[in-house]
């Protein structure tokens, strides 16, 4: 099976007995309450989704990621994984301390505070997103971060509980699952939308070359107008039940707050799927982009800079429904003129759905459309 990023799957989940011990002797430790997004990062670090990371980044690691797109050990890595706190919180903490990260009032993880440091938010945003424009949601979120960052290794005490835990698999679980299914090659598919026919076309085209497809929707805070998590999951359930072979597909969620960092996030998404055991990763048009901040195929071009990524990208350019071909097809295959083509415009499909209209069958499976239109409010408000 494909090696995880860095060669070893990180596992920093404390055993039950150690959890009990830790809960006892850590009662007097400082506590930092973290957001749902940070709690997801904690879980992802400790379960190996972010292998080889073992904790939140210290300054040297952060600078290496921002300026070289690599960790200090030269492994490819493009997105900062940070824990920020306010100045008041930071004043109470000393480097070398152990502290408890808490979520929803429960101890979440034990952290060994290796370094507390400041980092210019403007520079952080610019190096991560290629812009300092606050209309970019990632930039806006960065500018709102606390003034001090805490770096150091963490150990998971309690898993954060979520509504969709029955859809959540850790990398060790997907790896065993792929092995059980006798999949030697697996393509990962990142999504934050219910599937239209274009998505299905991409997944099934990729499936012609690999043993299985791993559909891995991102679950967590999204921007206004995005589809709600439960809608995405129900829509995929409907698609898989009606149009996929059970032997060829696995659906599991990734709790993670999208950064919308475009090309850099595409590399990061590929690394995460490599840790889940995927050998291939689908990169479409404007992957993880937002607005017009990135070129439509920047997220594909960036892979040229990462020959040692260890997972093969599969690039898809534009595809559409052609009335003359009577199928979903692409510019490479379809000889018919523009007026025969129906594009998979996310905005158009969203508009139709928000008006209670069912998109035509050429764009979306009726079972999928039904799930969405029957939901009282399918969009993040």
């Amino acid at each position, binding site marked *: 099976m494909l*090696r995880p990023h860095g060669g070893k799957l990180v596992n920093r989940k404390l055993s039950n007995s150690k959890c009990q011990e830790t809960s006892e002797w850590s009662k007097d430790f400082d506590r930092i309450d973290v957001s749902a997004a940070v709690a997801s990062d904690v879980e992802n670090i400790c379960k190996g989704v972010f292998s080889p990371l073992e904790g939140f980044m210290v300054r040297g690691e952060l600078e290496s990621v921002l300026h*070289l797109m690599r960790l200090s050990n*030269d492994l490819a890595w493009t997105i900062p994984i940070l824990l920020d706190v306010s100045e008041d919180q930071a004043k109470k903490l000393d480097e070398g301390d152990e502290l408890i990260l808490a979520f929803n009032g429960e101890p979440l993880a034990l952290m060994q505070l290796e370094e507390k440091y400041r980092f210019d938010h403007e520079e952080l945003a610019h190096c991560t997103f290629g812009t300092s424009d606050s209309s970019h949601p990632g930039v806006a979120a960065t500018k709102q971060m606390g003034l001090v960052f805490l770096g150091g290794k963490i150990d998971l005490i309690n898993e954060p509980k979520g509504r969709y835990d029955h859809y959540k698999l850790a990398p060790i679980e997907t790896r*065993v699952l792929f092995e059980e299914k006798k999949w030697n090659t697996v393509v990962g598919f990142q999504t934050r939308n219910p599937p239209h026919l274009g998505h299905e076309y991409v997944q099934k085209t990729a499936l012609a070359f690999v043993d299985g497809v791993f559909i891995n929707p991102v679950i967590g805070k999204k921007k206004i107008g995005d589809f709600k998590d439960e809608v995405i999951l129900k829509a995929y359930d409907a698609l898989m039940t009606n149009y996929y072979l059970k032997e060829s597909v696995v659906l599991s969620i990734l709790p993670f707050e999208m950064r919308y960092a475009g090309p850099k996030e595409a590399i990061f998404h590929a690394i995460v799927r490599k840790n889940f055991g995927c050998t291939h990763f689908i990169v479409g048009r404007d992957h993880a982009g937002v607005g017009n901040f990135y070129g439509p195929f920047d997220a594909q071009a960036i892979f040229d800079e990462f020959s040692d990524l260890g997972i093969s990208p599969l690039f898809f350019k534009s595809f559409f429904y052609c009335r003359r071909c009577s199928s979903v097809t692409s510019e490479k295959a379809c000889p018919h003129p523009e007026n025969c083509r129906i594009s998979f415009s996310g905005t158009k499909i969203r508009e139709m759905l928000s008006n209670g209209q069912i998109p035509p069958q050429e764009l979306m499976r009726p079972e999928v459309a039904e799930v969405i239109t029957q939901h009282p409010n399918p969009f993040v408000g």
Partner: protein
Amino acid sequence: MLPKKKKDEDRKKFTTVSIPTPLFKKVEARIKDTGFTSVSSYVAYVLREIVAEVEDEEPFSEEDKERVKERLRALGYID
């Protein structure tokens, strides 16, 4: 904010490696009209490809696997 000198030192993540001049020239000719902007970037690219082929992953223990399979069964992922 860090003093500028310290910041520059932290960012200095490169070192010098010597290669024979004829090889340098061959590489220089090869990367002409490609996306590589320097011999250094090409050499780093090639070396990373080679270095990436390293040791095998640690296999899971049978006990780990059985525990995982139990959860996968409970969730309906395997029969």
